[in-house]
């Protein structure tokens, strides 16, 4: 328990004692807004909202408070009162007070960067081995646009932070040189522009729009596949911009060489600069991302809780979603985020198997995997494969379903509970064996045993 919490708890106790001694009018008026600031070197520093209240506390209740503080700490204390209100300081750091203060905040700073999120910056991008190259190259580009790497092509699966990095470049460039012309668009926007220009016979006008840019960013470029006119326009735009040393940044879900239905000359342009990929974030990075995001929301997230959440999903958007749910849950329950709370949230979001669980489904799944019939599984034959399937089934029913040994015995053809114990133990032993572990973990019904996979099954790690 932290020092602050200890002090808070002590003060709550003292207040509850005082409450029994004074009239409720006095308590509400004088004691309600007080709190204990510190308790050090036998001096209790007590905060109260106004000097007038302090005057009354000093005059009438000094001894009463002192006696209670002394009794609770077991030593003689001196009391000092200071005028202070609880928790008002810095309450605006995150939450803008009302729509007026929220309204122009973004537009003002990022006035000419429409669609670029101001909070996508390098500072709040969590870096690890899976995305370090992309991070470093993006930073280099933001320092020397048009000259470092042109174009910069970032690719990787959903939710790994491609757009974040790209927009971080934009925000950085804008911060250092607000007069630079920056345009962020998705490939769909670009497509619409081209279609619009062709329809209005205004392709020249469109070219002009792009020609003056210093930085052009197109998100999800893979969607131009199969759109010939769009590709042609992009090709020309590309040439113009590269000629005048304007920076281009593209993102895609795959490498340029494997873009579908895309012209060769365009692909060669795409790969002409630097191509970097971002891999799915590893477990450590996911933890780091969670901690960064929690900080953004000014939420106190401890590492243990972060780990629990990070285990459950690889998609960073999903991570943020889960974090938000944990935060909401913590706020409504008025308790701190704990591993226990996180588990509850995960359970209710379907990331952890709930207690509603159907043994027959497990039996069916196991049988499908081993390509046998449930009757065979429940039967008496002791072929090696049938025995293995039976043991796996017992193990899953035990670990996931938490059934008792005799319940499992009844489900699998009325076997004795010692037989089941033996079966479960057998699989447990096999799981510690590296030769077998991989095979087991590939079985779909083991996927539900995520928690155990990370903890129970790795006794050596």
């Amino acid at each position, binding site marked *: 328990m932290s020092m602050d919490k200890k002090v808070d708890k002590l003060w709550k106790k003292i207040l509850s004692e005082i409450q029994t001694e004074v009239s409720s009018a006095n308590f*509400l008026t004088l004691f309600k807004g007080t709190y204990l600031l510190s308790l050090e070197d036998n001096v209790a520093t007590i905060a109260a909202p106004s000097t007038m209240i302090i005057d009354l506390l000093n005059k009438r209740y000094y001894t009463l408070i002192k006696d209670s503080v002394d009794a609770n700490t077991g030593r003689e204390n001196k009391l000092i009162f200071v005028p202070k209100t609880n928790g008002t300081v810095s309450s605006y750091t995150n939450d803008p007070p009302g729509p007026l203060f929220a309204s122009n905040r973004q537009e003002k700073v990022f006035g000419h960067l429409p669609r670029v999120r101001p909070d996508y910056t390098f500072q709040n991008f969590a870096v690890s081995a899976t995305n370090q190259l992309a991070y470093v190259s993006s930073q280099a580009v933001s320092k020397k646009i048009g000259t470092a790497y042109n174009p910069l092509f970032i690719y990787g699966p959903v939710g790994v932070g491609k757009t974040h990095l790209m927009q971080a470049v934009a925000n950085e460039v804008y911060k250092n040189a607000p007069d630079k012309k920056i345009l962020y668009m998705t490939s769909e926007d670009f497509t619409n522009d081209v279609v619009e220009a062709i329809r209005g016979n205004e392709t020249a006008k469109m070219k002009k729009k792009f020609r003056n840019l210093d930085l052009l960013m197109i998100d999800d470029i893979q969607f131009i596949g199969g759109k010939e006119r769009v590709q042609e326009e992009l090709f020309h735009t590309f040439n113009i911009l590269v000629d005048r040393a304007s920076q281009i940044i593209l993102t895609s879900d795959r490498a340029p060489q494997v873009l579908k239905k895309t012209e060769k000359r365009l692909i060669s342009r795409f790969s002409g600069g630097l191509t970097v990929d971002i891999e799915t974030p590893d477990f450590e990075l996911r933890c780091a991302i969670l901690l960064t995001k929690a900080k953004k929301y000014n939420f106190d997230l401890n590492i243990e809780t972060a780990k629990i959440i990070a285990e459950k999903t690889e998609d960073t958007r999903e991570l943020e979603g889960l974090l938000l749910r944990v935060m909401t849950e913590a706020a409504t329950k008025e308790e701190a985020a704990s591993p226990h709370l996180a588990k509850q949230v995960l359970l209710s979001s379907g990331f952890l198997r709930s207690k509603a669980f159907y043994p027959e489904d497990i039996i069916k799944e196991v049988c499908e995997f081993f390509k046998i019939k449930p009757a065979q599984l429940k039967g008496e034959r002791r072929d090696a494969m049938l025995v293995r399937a039976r043991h796996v089934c017992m193990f899953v029913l035990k670990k996931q379903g938490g059934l008792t040994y005799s319940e499992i015995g009844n489900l699998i053809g009325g076997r004795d509970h010692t037989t089941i114990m033996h079966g479960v133990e057998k699989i447990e032993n096999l799981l510690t064996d590296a030769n077998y572990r991989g095979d087991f973990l590939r079985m779909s019904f083991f996927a539900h045993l995520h928690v155990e996979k990370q903890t129970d099954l790795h006794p050596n790690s």
Partner: protein
Amino acid sequence: MLEAVILLENLKNGLSFVNHAISQRAQLPILLNFLIDGNKNGLFICATDLEIGIRIKIPAKVNKNGRIAVSAKTFLDLVTSITQEKVTISEKENNINLTTEKVKASFAKTPTDEFPSLYQEKGSKVAEFDKEEFKKETAKVVFSASLDIGRPALSGVYFEKQEADVGINLVAADGFRLSLRQGFAKKASSKKEPLKLIIPSRVIKEVLGVKEEDQKITLFTSSKSNQVVFGVGDTEVVGRLIESDYPDYKKIIPDDFDTKVYFDKPEAEDAVRSCLVFAREAANIIKLSIGNGKLKFSASSPQLGENEVEVDAKIEGEENEIAFNGRYLLDFLGAMESEDISFEMTGPLNPGVFRIPKEDNFLHIIMPIRIQE
């Protein structure tokens, strides 16, 4: 044992002002009392609800020093019903007597030792304002402050001074509107150091109501006790400073506009008032339509009907439309002394800016209401 002779007029005025610091909802019985204190410096009346405190010295002849506490309501009701000129207050063993030529009243005595002192020390003098200027300028600002104590910083008026000679910026806002008076009290003697004080709007409102001959308002603060004291002649208003950071108000001031309108304040005030008759049933929404040399105020309610009032206006820039909470418009227009007002806007969703054309140091911003066509 107090004994003092007072002119009824002075007592009445003093009591009715000090009564502002009495909260009818006070939980502590002692806070429902006036403290009357006669000593060698004069006769003082004070009251507090622990949030603010008021002390006033009234002209009186103090024959014997003493301190008494009397029920504010009973005492004030009695005093306002008396018509004679002179009143004598005298403290006896078990009660307090109030006598005139014809009236003999006697009050129950309340022990005075439970009465809190308003402050231990006044603190240091931060600034001295010209009373008329202070009243005129703070009145343009203070109405914007939030009444919601859940947002402490916004429940106060922000006094901010960056450098010595630029004067003080007065700011008040409630999250939907903001008033800013820049360069206030440039000439007023004040300390050289930068100033950052959030003073509860209630304290400012009380200072605006002080009736004193004296032309100076002196501001004292004590950071140690986190308190602020305004002294005007024989009156003192005490409050506590709000400890919080004031939100960055400069960021939200638009630096450009597409449409600017000049109009006559009294005419607009009447228009808003008549639109509010219908708007009252529809979340107080009043629409402003700008175009064709006219500023049109309109409101409609599905149950009641609708109303449209045109106001002559000089328009620069594009035609435009915007909707505001009519209460905010009325609060703002009501607080303005100037006959001429200008209004600037960029679009129906961006905050609108009101100014006084001849005073470039004042502005008022209101957040529009998004309306569906």
